[in-house]
């Protein structure tokens, strides 16, 4: 129900936009999000973009996960901030 699909913005016209993911094109609305730009990845829920995806944060998270991967079975927990 709260399913959010990450899609890329490829067309914009005011509060309306077209987003794509995996070969699917969808008309979506931007009423709930400020500052969206062409090429941004956004999370789509019931036809509305509800949040932007932050590529920088995504990379940092992946890096943290990979550190654990490299650390092997030590069971070390990664650093997290709240």
């Amino acid at each position: 129900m709260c399913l959010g699909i990450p899609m890329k913005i490829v067309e914009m016209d005011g509060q309306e936009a077209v987003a794509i993911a995996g070969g699917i094109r969808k008309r979506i609305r931007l009423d709930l999000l400020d500052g969206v730009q062409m090429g941004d990845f956004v999370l789509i829920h019931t036809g509305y973009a509800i949040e932007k995806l932050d590529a920088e944060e995504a990379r940092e998270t992946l890096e943290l996960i990979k550190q654990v991967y490299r650390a092997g079975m030590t069971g070390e927990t990664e650093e997290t901030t709240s």
Partner: protein
Amino acid sequence: MTDSFLEEFKDPKLAKRLAESISAITLDRPVTVMHVCGTHEHAIGRAGIRAVLPKGLRLVAGPGCPVCVCPARDIDLAVAAARIDDVTVTTFGDMFRVPSTTSSLEEEKASGGDVRVVYSPLDAVEFARKHPERRVIFIAVGFETTAAPIAASLLAGPPENFFILPSLRIIPPALTFLLEGGAGPVEGFILPGHVSTVIGVDGYRFLDEIFHVPGVIAGFEPVDVLRAVRELLAQIGGEKKSSVVNLYRRVVNEEGNRKAQDAIAKVFRVDDVEWRGIGTIPNSGLVLRSEFERIDAVKHLGLTVDTEPVDIRPGCLCHKVILGESEPEECKLFGEACTPRRPHGPCMVSSEGTCRARYQYRPVNQKPRE
């Protein structure tokens, strides 16, 4: 920028290593943690995460399925609406087959009612615009994630023949309810990633400040859930101070989506509402503000129910499943008299329902009974 950074989260090698590091943890006592999101239940079922948890750790599903906690009365009202000649009822697909007290929207459609499944409230508004001769009702069911788009579609000024049947609920009061007595031994929560896009980390501060219970906001890939489990165990075991932690930073930020919060606050106010099988939870529902009352289908059409609503049919344990007190497999009807094709209770209908997810991902040696 390509979307490869999203694909990387799906890398099974990373998940496997994380799973190994979690399996290796030993607990000196039994621990129960809860997630409150149907999409998490699917991620957990699909990836077989329960099989890799340390011995003694229970990961239960809480009230994370909006359709499952929508009271029978609301579906009864939608059924009553579908029986009115000039009314079209529009609904998310998940609601279509949920048994009400005496019927379901699916049955109403079969007997001639105009019931249509929509993907978005926008589709319902669009239909109303194209059919001014019909009164179009949209069943507004969902949590914060869904409340925001619904609020936005109402703020955009729908046509006069558009109404909603409000049945929206919010998550934090449900967590409070669980912690004040309903949740048994739950020692930590995996928090729903997409509700969190709206309410942010700030929406859960009370967990730590009032209850000193850890909460971890998590995404929906196996690595996300595994990291959340590990973080919870570190906090519960005392290696880390208990706090609300955001492990879904690629999407969720501290204060949430202010614009979405504002849209919700403009259209709705909180009120005490009923959760199917659980009872009334204070301040846990969103009802229309007086400026928007004319959009309320129940008031506009004077909808009533003639039979006392039945939330939980005999034999169904949904009310306990929703609170994490029973596992679906403990229900005698699970997979026998209750299957996705012939659901007996709401938890088997919605794709988000715990019984439904558990049935879908049941171990292969548990023979299909359908």
